[in-house]
């Protein structure tokens, strides 16, 4: 082998050169062989390897072992079945992953299916309602419907009116505060089922500034609290209580009757 003409990689390949040249499948091996052809050292290796392979080929097969050979395919390729494919750990893992992703997608879709302009604020206020204590509010013993005048006169809040459905309930207290976006929010605490009412500015179109309206009552739920929200004159009203949607629907349908 003319080592000076062969790279180290080629020498490495040549030492693994197949005994039969028809078994050469890669180009790099073919290139190394064509370079080594004619080299005495490589010819010796090839004749050594051929003699060794011939000797291995001459290993006799004992009759007891030969009995195991048959003309038929001893291990036929297994048939493809759905059941078998489902048992494949890779398929199983992919299947579970797809199911989880689909579940999260459906969960998110259902969560946002009933979204309306202002639903995000309403959810935040439900969290606030769950942590509010009566001592935080100014004590007011009056009908809820009369507080619209108080909000206008004292805080300059226009259209912060409690809808007729909740106007007749007695109040324990109220307050006006600003949220993290500097929006002024009115909060009223009722005697009735310790319900809380919120009035806050409706969402507006970012470009035109127009109020994003929605008809009727919409419902939101958060941390065991339920809110019924309606929009009127650019102000959203929310009645919130700890409980289910049915508990609030009752008040609204009773008012309609």
């Amino acid at each position, binding site marked *: 082998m003319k080592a000076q003409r062969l790279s180290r990689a080629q020498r490495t390949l040549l030492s693994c050169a197949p005994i039969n040249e028809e078994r050469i499948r890669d180009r790099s091996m073919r290139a190394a062989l064509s370079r080594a052809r004619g080299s005495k050292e490589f010819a010796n290796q090839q004749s050594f390897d051929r003699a060794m392979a011939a000797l291995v080929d001459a290993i006799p097969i004992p009759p007891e072992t030969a009995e195991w*050979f048959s003309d038929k395919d001893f291990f036929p390729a297994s048939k493809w079945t759905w059941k078998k494919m489902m048992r494949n750990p890779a398929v199983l893992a992919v299947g579970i992953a797809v199911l989880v992703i689909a579940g999260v997608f459906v969960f998110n879709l259902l969560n946002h299916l009933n979204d309306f302009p202002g639903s995000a604020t309403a959810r935040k206020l439900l969290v606030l309602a769950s942590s509010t204590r009566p001592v935080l509010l100014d004590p007011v013993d009056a009908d809820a419907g009369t507080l619209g005048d108080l909000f206008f006169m004292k805080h300059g809040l226009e259209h912060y009116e409690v809808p007729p459905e909740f106007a007749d309930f007695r109040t324990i207290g109220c307050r006006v505060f600003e949220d993290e976006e500097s929006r002024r929010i009115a909060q009223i605490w009722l005697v009735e089922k310790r319900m809380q009412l919120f009035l806050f500015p409706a969402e507006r179109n970012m470009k035109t500034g127009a109020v994003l309206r929605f008809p009727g009552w919409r419902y939101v739920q958060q941390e065991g609290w339920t809110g019924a929200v309606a929009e009127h004159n650019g102000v959203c009203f929310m009645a919130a209580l700890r409980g289910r949607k049915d508990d609030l629907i009752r008040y609204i349908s009773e008012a309609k009757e």
Partner: protein
Amino acid sequence: MPDRKQNLPQLYRFCFLMLGDSRKAQEVFQATLREAAASAAHGDVPREPFWLFREARWRCLEESKTDLQAEPLEMEEYEITPEASLQIEQLEPAQLAIWISSAPEPQRTALALFYLNEFDYGEILDLADLKLSELSRLLVMGRRQFQAWLNMMAPQISKI
């Protein structure tokens, strides 16, 4: 699965080269086939083309764990001579099998798979979990050590 990959006579020869003992080789061969037949009956035949040889290899390694192990010693090496093929022709297959089976792992597997003339080098690398440089070194070393052994065993032929 191509026929070449489940060449059963070659599988037996592989076991024989790995163990150097016909009785043990038959045991491993039959155990491998029994296990494979059981898997096939359950429809669990691996799609991997050399699984029979891989399975047989591990069984051979397990089998030889219980054998007496030769103390590792520095083997003489000698450059391959043009007369080597004539020297090899004088040998019995069992002598070659004993020589290969007493080589340390992974050289034993590399030599057995290579001289079966059943696999290309890429397939041997896969079966024996070797890198190309390792396989190359093991084969070069094996040839030179076998040549030295040949010279010792058949000096009259080396002088031709």
